[in-house]
């Protein structure tokens, strides 16, 4: 056990699985790192350093640099997956998934179903989500609801370094296409992460705080904000259950409904835009199956229905803040 960043935890997950299973290959822009530029090949590892050293460990046939063509990356990876390889495709910004939507939405997601269960597509698409770096409207979105909507895709959003490693290992071992979304503001989080391999099953929520007064469901970076609010309110005697579902698809409905049956109050925190979102999905789940438990209307804390602003001032207003989460909790407690 040692302290590792979210970034290093992800690198370790890929490294362990590539060592364990020769079918695991990595495909993406500059994932080898340093090719065609100055410096040593493999030294950098992608624009974010996530794949550092993997080229040196596993060689050019398993760490494959591609042109800047997302449709080619995903098309190649999905095809490779159907032949028995287990590709990890690094796409950098999740905002670019639109370029290769057909390969995911209409191809990879459908193979198992349309071939009567005889085909499997063990594909992991890694991409970054989230606002907070003033990277503007085309590099800051959190489009997870779009993929959650599609049967045949699994959607994973780790909120901490321990989960990042365990969920990525599970994603690589999974036989279906997995959209693995890393929040760009979390890469430098440091936590205790075991050195050994371990897998966290999909569809199993994590209770990051426990309490019987109000349930807060939050995803990805928003879990950190929810924890901060829960710790603050704890001092005032308001005890929050904070649920990090870890995966949007499959969703741990049982954990959410069980918690609301104890607390009777729900606040959902979602960094994405508010319409047809995870926030509305979870609100609908509780309204349809946990309504009798509710003591107050459900609180939703989301981004507004606008693109992510470039202006740092406006971006700060766009992202759900601990203050807004706290206000929402107080409202459902009133």
């Amino acid at each position, binding site marked *: 056990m040692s302290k590792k960043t979210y970034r290093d935890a992800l690198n370790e997950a890929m490294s362990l699985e590539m060592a364990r299973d020769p079918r695991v290959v990595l495909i993406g822009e500059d994932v080898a790192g340093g090719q065609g530029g100055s410096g040593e090949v493999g030294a950098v590892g992608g624009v974010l350093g996530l794949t550092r050293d993997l080229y040196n460990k596993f060689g050019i046939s398993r760490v494959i640099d591609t042109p800047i063509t997302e449709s080619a990356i995903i098309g190649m990876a999905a095809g490779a997956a159907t032949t028995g390889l287990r590709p990890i495709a690094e796409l950098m910004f999740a905002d670019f998934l639109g370029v290769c939507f057909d390969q995911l939405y209409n191809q990879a997601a459908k193979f198992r179903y349309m071939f009567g269960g005889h085909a499997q597509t063990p594909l992991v698409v890694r991409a970054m989500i989230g606002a907070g770096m003033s990277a503007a409207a085309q590099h800051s979105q959190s489009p997870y609801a779009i993929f959650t909507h599609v049967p045949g895709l699994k959607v994973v959003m780790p909120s901490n370094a321990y989960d990042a490693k365990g969920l990525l290992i599970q994603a690589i071992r999974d036989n279906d296409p997995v959209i693995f979304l890393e929040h760009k503001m979390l890469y430098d989080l440091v936590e205790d992460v*075991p050195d*050994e391999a*371990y897998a966290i099953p999909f569809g*199993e929520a994590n209770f990051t705080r426990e309490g019987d007064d109000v349930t807060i469901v939050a995803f990805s970076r928003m879990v950190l904000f929810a924890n901060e609010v829960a710790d603050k309110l704890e001092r005032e005697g308001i005890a929050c259950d904070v649920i990090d579902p870890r995966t949007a698809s499959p969703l741990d409905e049982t954990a959410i409904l069980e918690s609301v049956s104890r607390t009777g109050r729900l606040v959902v925190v979602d960094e994405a835009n508010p319409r047809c979102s995870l926030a509305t999905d979870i609100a609908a789940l509780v309204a349809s199956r946990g309504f009798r438990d509710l003591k107050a209307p459900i609180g939703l804390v989301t981004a507004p229905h606008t693109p992510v602003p470039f202006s740092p001032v406006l971006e700060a207003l766009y992202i759900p803040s601990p203050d807004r989460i706290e206000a929402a909790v107080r409202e459902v407690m009133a």
Partner: protein
Amino acid sequence: MTSLQAVTIPKWGLSMEEGTIVSWSAKVGQAVTAGDELVDVETTKITNTIEAQGEGVLRRILADAGDTLPCGRLIAVIGAEDATDGEIDEFVAAYATSEAETGGDSGGKPEPATLDLDGTRIRYFRAGDSGTPIVLIHGFGGDLDNWLFVQGELADNQETIAFDLPGHGGSTKTVGDGTPRALAEVIGRALDALGVARAHVVGHSFGASVAASLATLDPARFVSVTAIAPAGLGPEINGEYIQGFLNAKRRSDLTKAVSLLFADPSVVTSNMVEQLLRAKRLDGAQAALQTIVAANFPGDEQTPQQPDPWPSLADKLLVIWGERDAIIPPTHVNRLPASTDRVTIEGAGHMPHLERPGDVAAAIRDHIAAAE
């Protein structure tokens, strides 16, 4: 100046670095005497109570519920009723200064080490440096941290080595056929590698079966054997616990199972459960636990060890049992000769070394002293 007493976050174990205030049971202005409960503090393992050490009035509380503070941090002041507020302010300030100067009670957290025995990885934690080493072996599903509270006390006078059994904690996940003997052979090799020719061995539950097997395999090496709530003496065992622990994948299920271990289930912290869940998720851990259950506790009953190690140990054996053990009945001790040394720990369940560490450490020390 009136005498004032500091109440600080205690260091209950070698690896304890900080504690979290759960709740205060005493109020400012309340008169307290030695032994009165002041505050519950949560550690990475269980929640424990700090009691007043002397007589006085609880004059000031310096930490709120929810605060996580390093060991040694001042959290309350007890003093005479006539001590002035100024005197207390001075005391608190002086305390803060001395902590800042010494950097608190840190000194760096000692870390467990690992041995590589031809590809078999064994994690162990060594503390203390004199005398015949005391070998500590945890039970089914546990790890060396189970000795958190006891090892520190024992290590004050004597060398101690706590192991992670194969299949557990940071050790290799291969367990052979899962019998106590298979695991004892690995621990025996680990002791060879550490150059331990003579030792006392203390085992808990399934770890006591391993300890018994270890002491029978190499009788000359072990001066004494202490078995805490030993498995392997009789057929009965709480199958609800074994199956519950084995099959739990969620925190709520695991909490239910783990609560059965303790006389007072409220000592179970979410951190303890999270750590157990993390251990279970490691590659190979679940298969290892399954193999151990199949070999030792199939169908909710214990399989006796063949050959039975216990008769040959009678002379050097101490059995410690929590009177409220809900996993293995304390009456199993009656299957041993009436002359066998035994200690019953009141108010403890299956984990007396976590629930009543002081009593358990004292019993072990007495037994070891007598054996030497």
